């Protein structure tokens, strides 16, 4: 297990950060836990190589996001259910604001959510987001702008809807 030196510490230090970011992308804590644990399992298997990277956490996050995309359709269906019936009891600390945000995020295209999460939650500068997504900086800025606009409109709509109800 000499090759795994440092993995446990890396896992302990970064797991919750990554799971929070994946949750912001997916909107489902159980799925977020599942894909994050899968990503760390892969990192564990390839740890001898990944440990040498400048940012192993970026690798894990990328793998987790890829897994998350594979379950995007499922997430969309789930969000449809959520819109009809409200959140299940295990969604963390639901407040009206958070539920608005949850719904609004769920309506964004995954590529928009991804840019939001990387920039605001993972706190990556825009040029680093562009590098990690292999996109031109202008595209990242454009997506971020669109995502923020859409989010603002949707959160506004939600609140208006509640006020009118």
């Amino acid at each position: 297990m000499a090759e795994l030196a440092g993995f446990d510490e890396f896992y302990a230090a970064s797991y919750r950060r990554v799971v929070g970011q994946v949750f912001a992308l997916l909107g489902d804590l159980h799925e977020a836990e599942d894909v994050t644990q899968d990503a760390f399992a892969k990192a564990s298997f390839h740890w001898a190589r990944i440990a040498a990277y400048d940012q192993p956490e970026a690798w894990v996050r990328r793998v987790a996001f890829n897994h998350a995309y594979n379950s995007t359709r499922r997430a969309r269906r789930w969000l449809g259910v959520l819109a009809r019936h409200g959140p299940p009891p295990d969604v963390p600390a639901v407040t009206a604001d958070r539920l608005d945000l949850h719904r609004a995020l769920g309506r964004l295209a995954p590529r928009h959510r991804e840019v939001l999460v990387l920039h605001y939650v993972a706190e990556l500068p825009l040029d680093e987001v562009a590098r990690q997504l292999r996109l031109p900086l202008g595209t990242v800025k454009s997506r971020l702008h669109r995502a923020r606009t859409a989010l603002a409109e949707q959160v506004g709509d939600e609140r208006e809807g509640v006020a009118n109800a």
Partner: protein
Amino acid sequence: MREDLLKEQLMSYARSAAEVASQPGAAAIHRRARRHYRRVAALTVAGVLAAAGVGVGLGLGRDQTTPTVDQPSPPVTSPLPPASSTPPTTSPPATSTTGPTSTTRAPASARMPATFVASLGNRLAVMSSTTGRTVQTLVSAPQAQFAVGLSPDGATAYYSRLGPAACDQPGVFRMPVAGGPAVRIVDGESAAGPISTSADGSRLAYLTNVCGANDQVDLVLRDAAGALLRRWAVGPALSAARAITASLSPNGRAIAVTLFDELDPVGVRLLDVAHDAAVGDGRLIQAPDPGCKPVNALFQPGTGRLVMVERCLPKDPRTDSTPPRFTLVSVDPVSGRLLARGFAFDDHSGADLDVTTMDFDRSGRYLLYAVGSADPADSQVARPQTGTWRYGGGRPVRVADDRRSSGGERITSIGPTW
């Protein structure tokens, strides 16, 4: 919404989940990793056995193997283009715009082109098909990447700048591969991907780049001098469905467009150039294998077959960690029926691999293709499958990997064509 407020809300949203998330011990993660890779290994063995069965069924030799990679990769199967034991459907002729689909294989005696053209680092370059080394630089510009196409005789390159720079002075250019000045043949519009040429070199097709406030992607057909023949609106770049590549049929009467829904491949639309008014009017052709979707498709010179790379996922990727599998298949463009299989490989890396571009040589005997990945780790280490490969049956050969050269530029080429 104020930016600082949005950030605070998003951070709080993510933190609230992170705080209550369950975190198994590291030992559980190690066990999960071992379980996952035991399952992959078992499936690999099963894949080898299944592939052997397929190969025997097609009456193929046993020397057909998989790409040379340093990971478990089940060998499948036949070279492409192979001799098919079952002739493809050629009727009804009224619906066939792609020209006859030949049952004969492309000439086995065809010689592999010595060079190909690709965007490499900040250059558009002619590269050796055997060594992957640059033979000649055609165009060079800082921070530039290029969409590229080549005339069937290999004498003329067509190119556009990619990325934000493409929007500064959008255009499509033509230049002799042997050297000479570039001529702008299209002004105000750039290609966003490979520039496909008809077999006689008289027509070009490509998808347009998105610039500035214009969010629209178009599929355009032009003559070799750049005059517009047809234009089809694909839609906003950020809409649900988008096209990623376009391939002209050998006779120039049909275009195969590979469509994606966000990140998920949808299928290939086969447009009748003369009659279809929209991309959506084209006939939808799916990957022939169940659970698979085409990620890239093009017409094979000589045979008129539609050759595609299909990506196959497990039914529920969330619970089944079988890696995505990529297979080269050849189908009849009229019936969509499977005619033959070529190379195959698995994405064990979790890196979201994709066959980003591919192109046949003039004879249709040799295929050049590029495998890319969305994984940021690629900038730091070569993956077994990423890079540029050539394939003429048997074992694909990597002609460029994705490690960085001493000069810091990526060696992986974009849009390799020959």
